[in-house]
């Protein structure tokens, strides 16, 4: 497989503090990689470094200059009151070689094709706020796809959405990967998303571990990544992370299961 991006001992920083330290990572054509780690661990910076907008202060990033990159931001960062329709939002990414503001026939055809493919073909004239969570995510995937990328970067594509929307979004991402697109996404969802991806990078400013979920979702790696002990169970061969909340369990112990005929009071 062709290498799209390769990090060689890369260190990046904002201001004085290094955000990424000594990162070695390769993303090749057809890869599907998840980046997990606590808040502030450098996940978004790593995505931005892959995209080429964060420059390293040490190390080297090699990239395939021919490979276009598409970027899907966290929907939580989107200004939903900005006056922009679905079609306008998607068309924004068509910026190359066009000097007049209106869309060419080809632009319109391509945008329609992408919107149709993502199942939002009839929503082009709607304002982006008027869509469901899954449809909103599709708009920004469509905007990235209009660039015809070979590598799609997605920053927490399922944050803040319900279970049904999460399923919908992950189904879409798997379809895009199946069509040959390399995908790198960040996520906080270890059980719902990360455990189902082919390759994971556990990150906390530096790469703690890289491998299949079964290899890296272990108590040792997770403790080194998150700085807190986490229990891992196995369910049908898949790792399942169990979180313990001692304070909550303390309360739980005072609650005795209800008996028939009793309503709301411990027996």
């Amino acid at each position: 497989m062709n290498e799209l991006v390769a990090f060689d001992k890369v260190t990046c920083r904002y201001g004085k503090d290094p955000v990424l330290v000594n990162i070695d990572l390769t993303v090749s054509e057809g890869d599907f990689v998840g980046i997990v780690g606590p808040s502030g661990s450098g996940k978004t910076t790593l995505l931005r470094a892959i995209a080429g907008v964060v420059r390293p202060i040490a190390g080297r990033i090699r990239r395939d200059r021919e490979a276009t990159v598409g970027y899907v931001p966290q929907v939580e960062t989107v200004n939903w009151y900005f006056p922009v329709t679905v079609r306008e939002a998607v068309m924004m990414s068509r910026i190359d070689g066009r000097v007049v503001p209106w869309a060419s026939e080809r632009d319109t055809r391509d945008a329609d094709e992408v919107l149709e493919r993502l199942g939002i073909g009839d929503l082009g004239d709607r304002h982006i706020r008027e869509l469901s969570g899954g449809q909103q995510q599709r708009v920004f995937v469509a905007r990235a796809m209009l660039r015809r990328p070979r590598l799609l970067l997605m920053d927490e594509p399922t944050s803040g959405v319900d279970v049904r929307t999460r399923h919908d979004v992950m189904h879409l991402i798997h379809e895009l990967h199946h069509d040959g697109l390399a995908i790198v996404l960040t996520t906080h969802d270890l059980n719902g998303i990360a455990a189902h991806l082919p390759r994971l990078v556990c990150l906390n400013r530096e790469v703690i571990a890289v491998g299949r979920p079964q290899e890296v979702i272990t108590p040792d790696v997770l403790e080194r990544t998150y700085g807190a002990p986490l229990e891992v169970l196995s369910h049908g061969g898949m790792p399942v992370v169990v979180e313990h909340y001692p304070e909550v369990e303390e309360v739980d112990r005072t609650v005795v299961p209800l008996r028939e005929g009793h309503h709301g009071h411990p027996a």
Partner: protein
Amino acid sequence: MDTLLEPFRYEFFRNGIAVATLSGALCGLVGVYVVLRGMSYVGHGLSHAIFGGAVLSYALATNFYLGAGVTGLVAALLILLVARRRSIGADAAIGVITSSIFAIGVVIISVIGTFTRNFEAALFGNVLGVSPADVAAVALVTLATGLTVFLRYRQLLFTTFDPEVAEVSGVSTVANDVLLAIMLTALITVCMTVLGVTLIAAMLVIPPVIGRLLTDSFHKMLWISVVVGTVCGFVGVYLSYYLNWASGPAVVLTAALLFVIAYGVSSVKRRLLPEAALDTHVE
């Protein structure tokens, strides 16, 4: 008919209405980007900074437009630079930077003791006292700004809506920020002595807000804002002739009246639309 065309017999009126109409269109155009970036007070702020520049140019005995333009541009760039870092918001950046430059101007006045420019004209403008050269300057800036927005429409839109992804997608957001700073400074420099600080600040905000109330589409908002700015400039100065009002405030009051109408229309529209169509993303 003759009565309706009567004011156009006077050159001062023809110049005044031309400059007000062009300025209205110009403010409507640039104002869309200003309002959508949450920088509604930049008009007020930059006018203060440009005042500082005007004093500086007076003290150094250099050209007013040069001193005012350079100071305004430096202030606009500093505002955009500070706002990009997001450590403080754009509104706070406007407050800190422009009032500091204004204060420098006041200090210079206190040191040199005199400053002969007309403050009242700077605050409220003198639409009916403009010369053909003023009209030409505003026309030139309007044309250049219109052309810039036309040629960089998608880049400016992408930078305004989503600067981080725009950068990833190959858009030079820094270049677009510099362009916006240049457009704003040019606008305020050529319009300040004609329209005045108060009028510029109002016309940079009211037409885009009317556009936003009436549409959810960016390109429609842009058109509505330009048309509203143009109409307000024309109608305001025209009415001021018959009502014997000051021209600048008449333009602002026309815009304010249109805002009230647009607000009413948008409220009715929101009531008629099903609630689900407005906030379905909050599930």
